C-alpha cells in the first residue's frame, strides 16, 4: 500500500468512501508518522488510543453506509480548543492538568461529521505569538529548512503546531485560530493553506479566549479544497456564542473551479510597506498576473488607515486578553502556587503560570484599561478600528476581493526575533487589519523564497463571502502549481 499520509483530505475522503482503505489504516499511518516526528514538537498530547477507537467507529459507520462528511478523517486539534476528557493546555503552564468536562462547539461539529482526533497541537501560549516560541511545551519546528542549511526555523504562530503538522503530514488537516494572523501567517511559513473565516462564522464556545472581538477559528490544510471541506464542518451557528451568526453554511467546495473571469481584484497600495523584501514584491506581482490571466480585473485601491492597524491591535488585543486571562487564578483549575494569603497565591500562580509574552501583554492590557488611560488608548484604538473597517467597506464597493502578501517575510530562525517584541509584532502587518474588520482572509502557498522557503499570498473578502475567497484562492492555487515539499529530515 502507498503511504496513506500522502493523500489530501479530499482524496482520503474519496478513498475511504470507495473502501480502498479503512480509517483504521489511515489513522494508523498518521499515528506512526507522529511518533516518528517528535523532533518537530507539533503535538502536546497524542491521543492514539482515542484515535484508533474513533477510527474503528468510523469504519463501522462507513460499512453501514451512514458516513458523515468527514468520516474517518484523522485531524489534529490546536490545544486552544477544549476537548472533553482530554488534557487542554493552551500551551500554558497555568492550565497544568486541566481536563475539560465539555467539548468545544467547533470540535464537536467535526466529531459529529465523523472526524478522528489524533491529538492536541502545540501553539503559542494562549495564542500570543507569531513564531510558536512562547509555548510552555517548547517551540514547534518548521519542517521546512533553508536550502543547504539545517538550522531550525519557526513554523509561524500562533497556530504553529497546526501548520507544521499539516506540512509534515502529521494530520490530514488541523483546526487553528486566528486573532491577528495566527492561521494565515503560519500557513504562509509552511506552504499550507489557512483560512480565517468571517468573525462569527465559527463558534468561539469552548475555545480558550485570547481577544474575544478578534478570535476566530479556521482550518489549516494541504490545499484549498481541503480547507473548503474542513471549514464547512467547523462553521455554523451556535446559540451558546452571542457573537455567532445565524446564517446557513454554504457548500464551499462547490465554489472551487468556478471561473474568476470578471472578478474585480483590489490591490491595496498601502500594503507596499517600506523595507518589504523584493521577493515578496515579486510574488505579489506574480499573483496579480495569474488572476489577470484568468480573466480577473485588477484595480488599485486604497486602505488609508492600514498603518494604524498594528498599533490599535496591540491595544485592543492585550486589553481584552488582560480581562479574559483573569480567570486563571489557581482557584478552580490548573496550576496553583501556594501563597501566604489569597492575593499572594494569585500573584505567584500567575507569575509562574504565565510565560514572559503573556505576562507582557496582560500588563500592557491592564495599563491601557486603567483609570485615566482608557480613553487615550482603548477608546482611541476602537475609533481607529472603525476607520480601518470603513476603509475595507469602501474598497469593497469597487472590488470583490483584495490580494496581498500574507507576511512580510518567509519563515525565520528560532530565537531570531524573540529579543525584540516589536519586531515580532510586525510579522502580522498584513493580517491584523483583516481581524480588526472581522473579514475573511485566506493564505495560499504561491512560491518559494530565494532560500527555498514557502511564501503565501493572502486574499481578503467581504464579510461572509468565503465562497468568493475559495474561488479566487483555487485559481491562484492552480496557477501557482505549488508542489514543493520539505524533505523529511525529522523522521526518526
Amino acid at each position, binding site marked *: 500500500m502507498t503511504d496513506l499520509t500522502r493523500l489530501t483530505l479530499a482524496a482520503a475522503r474519496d478513498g475511504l468512501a470507495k473502501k480502498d482503505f479503512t480509517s483504521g489504516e489511515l489513522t494508523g499511518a498518521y499515528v506512526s508518522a507522529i511518533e516518528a516526528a517528535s523532533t518537530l514538537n507539533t503535538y502536546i498530547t497524542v491521543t492514539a488510543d482515542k484515535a484508533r477507537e474513533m477510527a474503528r467507529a468510523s469504519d463501522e459507520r462507513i460499512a453501514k453506509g451512514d458516513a458523515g462528511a468527514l468520516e474517518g478523517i484523522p485531524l489534529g486539534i490546536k490545544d486552544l480548543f477544549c476537548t472533553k476528557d482530554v488534557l487542554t493546555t493552551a500551551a500554558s503552564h497555568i492550565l497544568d492538568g486541566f481536563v475539560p468536562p465539555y467539548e468545544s462547539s467547533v470540535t464537536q461539529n467535526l466529531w459529529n461529521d465523523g472526524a478522528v482526533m489524533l491529538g492536541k497541537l502545540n501553539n503559542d501560549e494562549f495564542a500570543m505569538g507569531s513564531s510558536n516560541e512562547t509555548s510552555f511545551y517548547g517551540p514547534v519546528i518548521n519542517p521546512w529548512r533553508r536550502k543547504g542549511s539545517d538550522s531550525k526555523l519557526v513554523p509561524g504562530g500562533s497556530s504553529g503546531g497546526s501548520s507544521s503538522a499539516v506540512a509534515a503530514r502529521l494530520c490530514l488537516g488541523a483546526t487553528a485560530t486566528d486573532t491577528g494572523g495566527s492561521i494565515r501567517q503560519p500557513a504562509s511559513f509552511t506552504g499550507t493553506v489557512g483560512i480565517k473565516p468571517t468573525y*462569527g462564522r465559527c463558534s468561539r464556545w469552548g475555545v480558550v479566549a485570547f481577544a474575544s472581538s478578534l478570535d476566530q477559528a479556521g482550518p489549516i490544510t494541504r490545499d484549498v479544497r481541503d480547507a473548503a471541506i474542513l471549514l464547512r464542518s467547523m462553521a455554523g451557528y451556535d446559540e451558546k456564542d452571542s*457573537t455567532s451568526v445565524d446564517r446557513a453554511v454554504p457548500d464551499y467546495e462547490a465554489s472551487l473551479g468556478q471561473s474568476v473571469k470578471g472578478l474585480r481584484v483590489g490591490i491595496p497600495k498601502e500594503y507596499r510597506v517600506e523595507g518589504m523584501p523584493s521577493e515578496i514584491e515579486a510574488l505579489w506581482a506574480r499573483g496579480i498576473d495569474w488572476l489577470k490571466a484568468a480573466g480577473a480585473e485588477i484595480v488599485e485601491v486604497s486602505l488609508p488607515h492600514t498603518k*494604524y492597524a498594528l498599533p490599535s491591535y496591540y491595544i485592543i488585543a492585550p486589553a481584552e486578553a488582560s480581562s479574559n486571562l483573569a480567570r486563571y487564578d489557581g482557584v*478552580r483549575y490548573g496550576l496553583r502556587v501556594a501563597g501566604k*494569603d489569597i492575593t499572594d497565591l494569585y500573584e505567584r500562580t*500567575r507569575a509562574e503560570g504565565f510565560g514572559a509574552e503573556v505576562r*507582557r501583554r*496582560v500588563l500592557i492590557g491592564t495599563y491601557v484599561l486603567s483609570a485615566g488611560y482608557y480613553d487615550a488608548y482603548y477608546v482611541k484604538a476602537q475609533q481607529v478600528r472603525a476607520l480601518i473597517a470603513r476603509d475595507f467597506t469602501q474598497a469593497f464597493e469597487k472590488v470583490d476581493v483584495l490580494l496581498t502578501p500574507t507576511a512580510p517575510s518567509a519563515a525565520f530562525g528560532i530565537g531570531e526575533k524573540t529579543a525584540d517584541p516589536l519586531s515580532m509584532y510586525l510579522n502580522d502587518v498584513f493580517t491584523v487589519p483583516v481581524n480588526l474588520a472581522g473579514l475573511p482572509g485566506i493564505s495560499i502557498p504561491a512560491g518559494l523564497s530565494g532560500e527555498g522557503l514557502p511564501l503565501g499570498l493572502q486574499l481578503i473578502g467581504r464579510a461572509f463571502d468565503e465562497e468568493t475567497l475559495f474561488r479566487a484562492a483555487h485559481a491562484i492555487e492552480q496557477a501557482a502549481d505549488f508542489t514543493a515539499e520539505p524533505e523529511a529530515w525529522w523522521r526518526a
Partner: protein
Amino acid sequence: MSVDQNTVRRIARLARIAVTQEELAPLAGELSGILAWVEQLNGLDTTGVEPMTSAVAMSLKSREDVITSGNLQAEVTRNAPLSEDGFFVVPKVVE
C-alpha cells in the same frame, strides 16, 4: 508614555502578577517601548468617530428563562487544585 518602575509595580499588582525587583527595570523598558509605538495613533484625528463595538453587523442573541444546566458539582470541581465537600477551597480570606 514612559512607564516607570512604580507604575509597573502598580499595574502588576492590579493584574495579580508577582514581579521581582530585578524584573522591574527591564519590564518598564519593554512596556515603555510598546506604548511609545502604539502612541503613533495620536497622529490620527478621530474626532467624532464612533468606537467600534462589534466586528460584524449582528444583533444580540438571547436565551429564554429556562434551566438548562446544573447538578454538575463533580464536573465543576474536578479540576480544582483544592476542594472539599463540593466547595472550592482557598486560603482564608479576611474582610
